[in-house]
């Protein structure tokens, strides 16, 4: 039985561009422009796209680390964007985030133990003795030795720091964790350790993940369903297997074909896209992808394609599908 844990509807985030002496607004960077999706309890939704597609902004908007311009975010039926300060504080125990850069995500002046105590202090969880036990439980759970609690972040490697970042997110027992490129900064051998850890944690703790990444093989590996973004808009969403075997959107197809395959004999039918990503401050009219799309027709330049379900659970925004 699938049950929606997180529902995002028509999420929009425009960043104003200020110019001149009086800082008047001359335009907007349309970082996220109408994104809707549902995440079911216990599943992993992968979110992929290239730089400037709005995947990070989207993740942070859901958590209200960035205040979205408009839209609706529902967590277990509660309207997150309507919560007041106190309500939001409580909500933060349900939704947590793990960041990309393991060097910037830990306070250099806190020991690992202090970093892990912080969430419990903020939420006044447990008595002091239980807190300590919880810190050790967390360290153990992410595969770190207990004595690391008294060490500083700079004494650790990237992979170990990322484990601490994961432990910090788990300290408040959240139901949903947004993973914002959690393995992008890690070497492949360490990346696989962290991916396995995330899978184990998800099974043990029945966690729900939103996994934001630019690496498609990693996303395929960890996700149940995958959402493809382009310039702040949704291009395609489908079950992971379905998306990787039968991509429908020309952008998804190009993206998949562009991945270098570690097999010298692999047959490649590479679609090489022409040109650069347009700027999200000045997105093309009609379908945002039409400037680089190998099969674009006139209609694509004028009309924004509708988001429609082509097969059960497989949605796509393209005139030609």
């Amino acid at each position, binding site marked *: 039985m699938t049950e929606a844990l997180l529902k995002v509807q028509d999420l929009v985030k425009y960043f104003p561009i200020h110019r001149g002496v009086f800082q008047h607004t001359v335009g907007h960077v349309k970082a996220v422009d109408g994104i809707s999706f549902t995440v079911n309890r216990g599943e992993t939704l992968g979110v992929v796209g*290239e*730089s400037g597609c709005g995947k990070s902004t989207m993740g942070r908007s859901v958590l209200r680390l960035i205040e979205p311009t408009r839209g609706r975010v529902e967590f277990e039926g509660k309207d997150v964007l309507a919560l007041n300060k106190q309500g939001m504080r409580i909500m933060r125990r349900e939704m947590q985030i793990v960041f990309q850069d393991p060097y910037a995500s830990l306070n250099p002046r806190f020991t690992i133990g202090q970093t892990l105590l912080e969430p419990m202090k903020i939420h006044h969880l447990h008595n002091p003795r239980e807190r300590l036990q919880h810190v050790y439980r967390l360290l153990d759970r992410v595969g770190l030795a207990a004595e690391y609690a008294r060490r500083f972040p700079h004494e650790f*490697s990237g*992979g*170990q720091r990322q484990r601490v970042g994961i432990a910090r997110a788990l300290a408040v027992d959240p139901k949903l964790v947004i993973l914002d490129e959690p393995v992008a900064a890690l*070497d*492949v*051998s*360490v*990346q*696989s*350790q962290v*991916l*396995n850890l995330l*899978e184990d944690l998800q099974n043990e703790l029945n966690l729900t993940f939103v996994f934001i990444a*630019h690496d*498609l*093989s*990693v996303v*395929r*590996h*960890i996700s149940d369903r995958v959402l493809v973004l382009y310039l702040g808009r949704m291009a395609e969403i489908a079950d992971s297997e379905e998306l*990787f075997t039968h991509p429908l959107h020309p952008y998804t197809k*190009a*993206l*998949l*074909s*562009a*991945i*270098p*395959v*570690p*097999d*010298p*004999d*692999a047959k*490649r039918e*590479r679609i*090489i*896209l022409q*040109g*650069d*990503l347009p700027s999200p401050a000045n997105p093309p009219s009609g379908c945002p992808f039409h400037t*680089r799309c190998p099969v674009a027709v006139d209609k694509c330049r004028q009309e924004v394609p509708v988001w429609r379900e082509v097969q059960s659970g497989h949605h796509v925004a393209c005139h030609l599908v």
Partner: protein
Amino acid sequence: MEKVLEVRDLTIEFLIEERYHQAVQGVSFEIGEGETLGLVGESGCGKSVTSLALMRLLPVHTKVSGQVRFRGEDLLTVGEPKMRQIRGNEISMIFQEPMTSLNPVHRIGTQISESLILHRNLSASKARAQSIELLKLVGIPRAEQIVDEYPHQLSGGMRQRVMIAMAMACQPTVLIADEPTTALDVTIQAQILDLMRNLTAQNRMSTLLITHDLGVVAEMCDRVAVMYAGQIVEQGPVREIFRHPSHPYTIGLMNCIPKIAGERTRLVPIEGNVPSLQNMGTGCRFAPRCPQAMEVCKNEPQEYDVGTGHKSRCWLHAEAGVTSR
């Protein structure tokens, strides 16, 4: 095939807290004419340091020994004026970060012209015309305008194309590309790799491609050298390495990357972390993380033949006999 660049026993030592530590140890490889050699490894394995040593661009307080033979000369011993003639002319380099490797205060055209004026004695106007040709060659639209623009006006992919144009300016014999596409998005990476493949084929350039991405290696290289903790642990023809990886580290690397097609299985990570320079230990450097480590691994292994032109630095292959140097 004629050897263009031959590296023998390259050892590089850095001064850290008043002691020298080996960042690269006993690295030997060669690149033939028109051949692309991939140098793969994780961060800190010494692959970038190796490339800088070839160009003699390492910082002071660094001890370099061994030989780098290029056209019969040892680049480690030639004088600095001679080296300046080689850099950017005979051997050129492309770096990972296209924003920081272009000078932000000079126009694109000025930066490309510089090496043409320096090495080819072209006049400023001829160099400019040549720059525009080069920009066209690397697929930059509106080359006549771009030549007068500044780096910050270009996207990451375009800047990397400019870097390639600069590297190609004097039609070098050897191109060293240090993670040329790591900072780029996949669709842009595909463009750049495609461009590099075409250019090197057309000019029969020998390329040293440094990367951490096995996918890029499979696509671009003729031969591969896998580095771990400052040593080449395995090298051979690309098909050989991917079909029959021999060294446990290479096998580990292949198993721990998620696949884009086929069945989804649990990843098999390489446990532990890369040793730091200061505590490298003795014997095989991979032994502490190796699932097949044995008693003999406490001793330093040599490179052993495991196939035609395929060598592995692992005791498992010692029976095949020590490779002749």
